């Protein structure tokens, strides 16, 4: 369900009030951007995808069903936008090194750089091992604390499909993580003096 103040904003925006939609953008920019970033793997593409997602939401506002949570509707648009972008440009998930290279070129704000630094390389690598759809399910589960039903609604999947995606994703994440830990252990053994 949508809160009353939010409903008023949505109604005003649907009637062409740009300031009202600007307020919606302010409110939802962070969750939308975060989803795009987690799915696309770099700030440039995440910015473009989230901007386009808001553009599509603006155009489709009259089709929005107020019985549905606005956040989940917005994230569904962002998810579809990211999938389109991935299909069109065949973007591959980049590791942390590529992320920093790209970020350097685009001179991001300190805020963005700090956010990127706060993540461990292992998280990035582990997520990159998943397919885009599995990654979306994992991101919605762990970053948004979504229930299976909410994930299913956002990704247009059945409840059981969400469960099987999450199960598979966990298996893959563990494989990647364990392999990485093993590699790290071997690296440390090589460095440590006899």
């Amino acid at each position, binding site marked *: 369900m949508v809160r009353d103040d939010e409903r008023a904003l949505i109604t005003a925006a649907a009637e062409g009030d740009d300031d009202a939609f600007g307020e919606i953008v302010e409110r939802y920019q962070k969750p939308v951007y975060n989803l795009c970033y987690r799915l696309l793997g770099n700030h440039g593409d995440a910015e473009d995808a989230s901007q386009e997602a808001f553009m599509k939401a603006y155009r489709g506002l009259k089709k929005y069903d107020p019985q549905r949570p606005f956040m989940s509707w917005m994230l569904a648009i962002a998810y579809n936008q990211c999938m389109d972008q991935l299909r069109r440009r065949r973007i591959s998930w980049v590791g942390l090194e590529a992320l920093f290279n790209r970020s350097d070129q685009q001179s991001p704000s300190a*805020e963005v750089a700090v956010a990127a630094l706060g993540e461990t390389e292992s998280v990035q690598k582990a997520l990159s091992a998943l397919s885009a759809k599995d990654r979306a399910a994992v991101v919605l589960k762990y970053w948004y604390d979504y229930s299976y039903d909410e994930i299913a609604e956002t990704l247009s999947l059945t409840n059981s499909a969400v469960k099987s995606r999450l199960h598979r994703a966990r298996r893959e994440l563990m494989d990647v993580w364990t392999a990485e830990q093993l590699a790290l252990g071997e690296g440390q053994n090589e460095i440590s003096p006899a």
Partner: protein
Amino acid sequence: MKSRQLDHWPMDERDLTAAEKEREKERLERELKKSPELRKELSAWQAIEASFQEAPMVSPERGFARRWQTRLAARRERRSQRQVNWLLGLLMMGALSALLLIGLDTLASPAQLGSAVIESVLRVGKLIGSGARYLAILGDGWPAFMGALALSAALAWVSVLWVAAMYRYAFGQIQNGVR
């Protein structure tokens, strides 16, 4: 190394009752005691979950909403430019067609340009008149009158639609119909 052992609660996706959860916990604890592999996997999963929980929600650069407003304005600008281009194109096509008709008429006698223009206008009028006469031949009296009325109404409706479409293309207010 492939992890294929850890399928216990809370790793699986089943919806369990409180009693079932308790039983699953006990089963997991029993198996953890027996299997070092399982212990490794569970600690790996706990580490992954912890790292997810520590990873922050990433924010866009400051001014995201302002950049969105700019993008929207640019889209509108492009759209209205496209509308003007369409209108100009249609007008050009109409003008060229009229010029072509008039030009064909004046090929034989270039001095009679003025009368050729008038003749072109009259030709359109004659065409409409022929339609009306054809209806009058089809039947006399009331049915022919109704037919002519219906034809006129249809023509008027098409003209109104065309003018409205032109107006919308050229000057229509663009709100949520951004392309």
